[in-house]
């Protein structure tokens, strides 16, 4: 394995981590707001707050890790993506900022206003939408070099069906991942009513997710044939991912083994995510930037990888402690004990 591949793999794994935990967070916010509208809030609020409270800051660090690591391993991305993403990334940042701070204000400060809950829920859909635009751009065709500086063509981006499918996929995945997780979590907490409601949402959002995912592959055929070819080359990975999807769906439908269902869902997304990343190689931005010409120097790459390994050794036990104390702690999850400051 070359240093380039190690670097991008590490980053891709952290991005995957972010996608999963942030989806749970974003989706939970949306379901919370939606249940306020339909007067079912009493069912969900406890479950959602118990899960989200101790981990929200950790979720955010995954994102920071990804973009800081990207600059470290692939400094040239700063030049291409930094210039072109100014508007979508700034929008995502503003939404993230409002969301993160109001979350803390509400949870630790004082119960507020319904309006915040709605803004909070809505932002959970808009943020993935805005962030996913960077994936759209990476497929090429929306950026050209003018006087040596990359320029983003907003109109083409706006009218491209690929944009809207990827944005739509981001949103549906958020809702799907989140509802499957919360089904399990509610069950784990022994809350039958919440389990039932979340299960219903999981079933609803499963198919739109799969259909858009397929749609994107079809659209890539026209938009970026090279990428499409690479996807077809590893069709088996996407097949496995599809089978795992069916497994998850089946378990949820049969009301069986929600923990396993969630694991299969993670595996499904993991394989699809890796497969997508693998087939995207070697381009970071079609056709301007590849892994190889965007890569940092060897001294820095080695230093970063060493720092990463040491840091990871430090984090793993800490994360384990966090999960043991909150996610898997029966007394905490069921709300029997509350030791909040």
């Amino acid at each position, binding site marked *: 394995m070359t240093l380039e591949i190690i670097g991008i793999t590490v980053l891709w794994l952290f991005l995957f981590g972010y996608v999963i935990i942030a989806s749970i967070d974003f989706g939970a916010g949306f379901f919370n707001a939606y249940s306020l509208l339909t007067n079912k809030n009493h069912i969900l609020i406890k479950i959602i707050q118990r899960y989200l*409270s*101790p*981990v929200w*800051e*950790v979720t*955010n*660090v995954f*994102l*920071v*890790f990804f*973009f*800081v*690591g990207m*600059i*470290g391993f692939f*400094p040239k*991305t*700063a*030049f*291409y*993506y*930094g*210039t*072109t993403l*100014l*508007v979508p*990334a*700034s*929008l995502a*940042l*503003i939404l993230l*900022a*409002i969301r*993160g*701070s109001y979350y*803390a*204000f509400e949870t*630790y*400060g*004082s119960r507020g206003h319904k309006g915040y809950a709605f803004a909070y829920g809505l932002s959970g859909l808009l943020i993935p939408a805005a962030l996913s635009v960077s994936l759209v751009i990476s497929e090429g065709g929306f950026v050209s070099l003018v*006087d*040596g*500086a990359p320029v983003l063509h907003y109109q083409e981006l706006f009218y491209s069906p690929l944009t809207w499918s990827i944005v739509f996929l981001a949103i549906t995945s958020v809702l799907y991942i989140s509802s499957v997780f919360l089904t399990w979590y509610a069950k784990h907490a022994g809350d039958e009513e919440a389990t039932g409601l979340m299960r219903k949402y999981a079933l609803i959002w499963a198919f739109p997710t799969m259909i858009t995912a397929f749609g994107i592959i079809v659209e890539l055929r026209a938009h970026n044939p090279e990428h499409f070819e690479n996807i077809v080359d590893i069709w088996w990975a996407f097949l496995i991912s599809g089978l795992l999807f069916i497994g998850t769906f089946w378990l949820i439908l049969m009301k069986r083994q929600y923990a396993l269902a969630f694991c299969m869902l993670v595996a499904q997304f993991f394989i699809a995510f890796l497969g997508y990343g693998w087939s995207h190689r070697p381009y970071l931005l079609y056709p301007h930037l590849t892994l190889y010409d965007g890569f*940092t*120097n060897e*001294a*820095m790459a080695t*230093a*970063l990888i060493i720092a990463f390994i040491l840091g990871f050794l*430090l*984090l793993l036990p*800490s*994360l384990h402690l*966090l999960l043991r*104390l909150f996610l898997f702690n029966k007394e*905490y999850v069921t709300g029997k*004990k509350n*030791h*909040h*400051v």
Partner: protein
Amino acid sequence: MANEEAVFFSRVLTELTLTFHIIYATIGVGVPLMIMIAQWVGIKKNDEHYILLARRWTRGFVITVAVGVVTGTVIGMQLSLLWPNFMELAGHIISLPLFMETFAFFFEAIFLGIYLYTWDRFENQKKHLLLLVPVAIGASFSAVFITMVNAFMNAPQGFDIVNGELVNISPILAMFNPAMPTKVAHVVATAYMTSAFVLAAIGAFRLLKGSNHIYHKKAIYLMMKVGFVFSIATALIGDLSGKYLAEYQPEKLAAAEWHFETEENASLILFGVLQDGEVKYQIEIPYALSILAHSNPTAEVTGLNEFPEDEIPPLYIHYLFNIMVAIGMLMLFVSGLYLYAKRRGWRFVNQKWYRWLIVAGGPLSIIAIETGWWLAEVGRQPWILRGILKVEDAATTSNHVDLMLIAFALLYLVLGIGSVVILSRMFRRNPVEQELQDRTREKGSDF
């Protein structure tokens, strides 16, 4: 091909974001240490007041951390959005500490989550206190790492440029650049100092607003002690920072001191105004600049005349420097006198005017932080990487920076007002007296 408008708005937006972030970041670095000290004293003395102090500070801290985290995320990404050319270059040489900083955040975030949700969960309180240690370490190390990056911008090293190509890159050399020791130490010490004075100010404010509870008095005394220690450290390290500047960035020191001609026996100029190149109404301290720069009253100090016109930083940093130093000296005096008077049993420090002075110390320390950063950053102009890359060549070429500036300005307004409102509401609804009573009832003990 620099886009002048984009450069201008990128500067303003960077200034705005950093100026806002640094308030919350400073509190984020310093307050965990103060909580730790209070909780430790509480456990040692078996005094419920200190424990409650730790607990209430933690609650407030959660709000400031939230704003610190979100604005930090903003600046982290904004650096690439607004300064892509700089970040591309920096990515090659100085991304190591930036990367390590995320681990420090990670560490802090995980243990903060645990700490917040495990009050009274452990039989042995010391175990709970132990959970705070990684929070404090993580927060302080984020400051250390990010300041290393900033130090690199002032004194870049650890690479060579041959025919426009970067060669011989050494991330470690880049991290341990000459600006690093004083800068890191000064930033960390001032964060502790500021946090201590902010917390003391809150206590003094409660006393002025009618409370007469011993709880607040204990808080003030403890924080004045800590603040005093760190203001001494701040002044000493600040002096070393001046010596660093004299050696490595003489133009910054000369501009900050309005030192126009290279000369020996240089005197220090405080305040004053510039009229047609003449300094007027200033206070002059003979030999002091030579001492600040070289620890020697007769030493020669480089003046601005040695530098090309277009590499001289704006001269208004003189005032920033003066304000920072004046506040540092004032706070050293206020806290020192307070401690001395308490020991001697002098009553005047319990009077209203002195308490107002302590209240002022909180915002003043934050102003010192702001002016200090503005001094350091504006004093580096026109460079973004001193001697290597100019600000105007580093900025984005995008045409939408002005819109983003407005959007972010609104965001900071909302966050700023929001955090202040929430904090004051949180503590007003649950006053100390009430909480102490509740806890007495819960525990059935007497204190």
